[in-house]
């Protein structure tokens, strides 16, 4: 092992990483927002007693869980424009694709969280005259959210990592920027090492936060 590391290269090109991280953050933010809102909807549909809501939600969730994310992304990027004439930018394609993908997983987290709340809470809410919406929003969800937070944060961390798939669609997120940088510097070891560290720096605080919250709520409930 007489490889000589030149991490100076990384410092010279630090702005490339900052730029990539900014795109990665955007992809993560958009796909999380899409995933959470659709996920809540599908999660509620899937636990509904109404079959016309439940069945499509189930099909959606199982379909997205049963296909690779990369296939979903390239399908949206290449097939959607041909079928609908709707040409999305790379960033939009990845955000939508990952958002739709995450929705399937978020939906399952919502459903499991809602189901974990004691049926007596529904009884109590109904007995004071609450309808489904009020009971769900004021009584069930606030309790369920706490149980959902750890799996949510896991899924969020997964989503950050999945944004690297954007490099396939020519989105200048961290991995894509890193690959370009290697073409200029011929320093793959340094660049990929720095890339791994960059992701760890992005993701580790999130995991830490999840653990803190979990502990906080366990001692306060």
């Amino acid at each position, binding site marked *: 092992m007489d490889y000589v590391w030149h991490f100076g290269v990384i410092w010279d090109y630090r702005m490339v990483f900052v730029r990539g991280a900014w795109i990665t953050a955007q992809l993560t933010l958009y796909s999380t927002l899409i995933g959470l809102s659709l996920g809540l909807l599908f999660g509620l549909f899937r636990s509904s007693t109404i079959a016309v809501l439940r069945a499509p939600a189930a099909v959606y969730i199982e379909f997205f869980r049963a296909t690779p994310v990369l296939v979903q992304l390239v399908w949206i990027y290449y097939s959607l424009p041909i079928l609908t004439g709707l040409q999305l930018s790379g960033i939009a394609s990845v955000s939508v694709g990952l958002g739709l993908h995450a929705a399937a997983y978020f939906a399952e987290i919502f459903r499991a969280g809602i189901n974990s709340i004691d049926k*007596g809470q529904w009884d109590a809410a109904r007995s*004071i005259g*609450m309808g489904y919406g*009020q009971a769900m929003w*004021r009584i069930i969800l606030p309790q369920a959210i706490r149980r959902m937070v750890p799996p949510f944060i896991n899924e969020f961390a997964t989503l950050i990592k999945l944004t690297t798939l954007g490099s396939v669609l020519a989105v200048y997120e961290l991995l894509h920027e890193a690959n370009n940088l290697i073409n200029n510097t011929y320093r793959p070891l340094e660049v990929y090492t720095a890339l791994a560290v960059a992701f760890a720096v992005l993701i580790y605080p999130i995991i830490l936060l999840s653990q803190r919250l979990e502990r906080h709520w366990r001692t306060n409930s």
Partner: protein
Amino acid sequence: MIEVRNLHKYYGALHVLRGMDIDIAKGEVFSVIGPSGSGKSTFLRCLNFLEEYQQGDIRFDGRLVGYRETAGKRLRASPRDIAAVRTRMGMVFQSFNLFPHKTVLENVMEGPVIVQKKPEAVVRKLALDLLEQVGLSDKTDQYPSKLSGGQQQRVGIARALAMQPEVMLFDEPTSALDPELVGEVLDVMKALATGGMTMVIVTHEMSFAREVSDRVMMMDEGLIIEVDRPEVIFGNPQQARTADFLRRVVH
């Protein structure tokens, strides 16, 4: 005030209420006793439509509970109508079912503020009065998990009363309590009964039922075995099944 006619309830193939007829009058304290699995709680939960019934009528102030009839066909009532009936009947549960993410005061205020849309200041005063009535003035800002079972159940009673209901339904309110905490809950219920509240109480507390009830209904296997004044039910039951049951629970 409550009229039940030929009430039938099924869980799938299981026939749990098998034709019940009973009237409960305004101001009456009406206790329901019977072995576990006899359908007492199911009967109570049908009264405010927490459970659907499949046949027969429950009428509250003359209006059918849970269903509406159009052109001879019976359809489920609108969620709004079902909720409206429920706000007129307070319910107290065996397992309290307080909202664990809300303080004692918030638990009591939730219904009047959110469902009945009453002004918060008015409700706060009402809630504080009720909490004083049940002896919990010093616990208003606590969360339910910090309270004993007896205290939680008294909050449960205050929460139900906050809707200013016309009837109170009690579903085995003391069955989940440690024996030394039963008394404090029964005292609150006794005060309510004395105050003229209409109450339907599913209970295993025989001496309590005997003391406060105007009438006691004995149920078994989804049927009414007998209904009578407590002196008769407990002193001189007319049905062998009632006598058997009482002999078993007293010892």
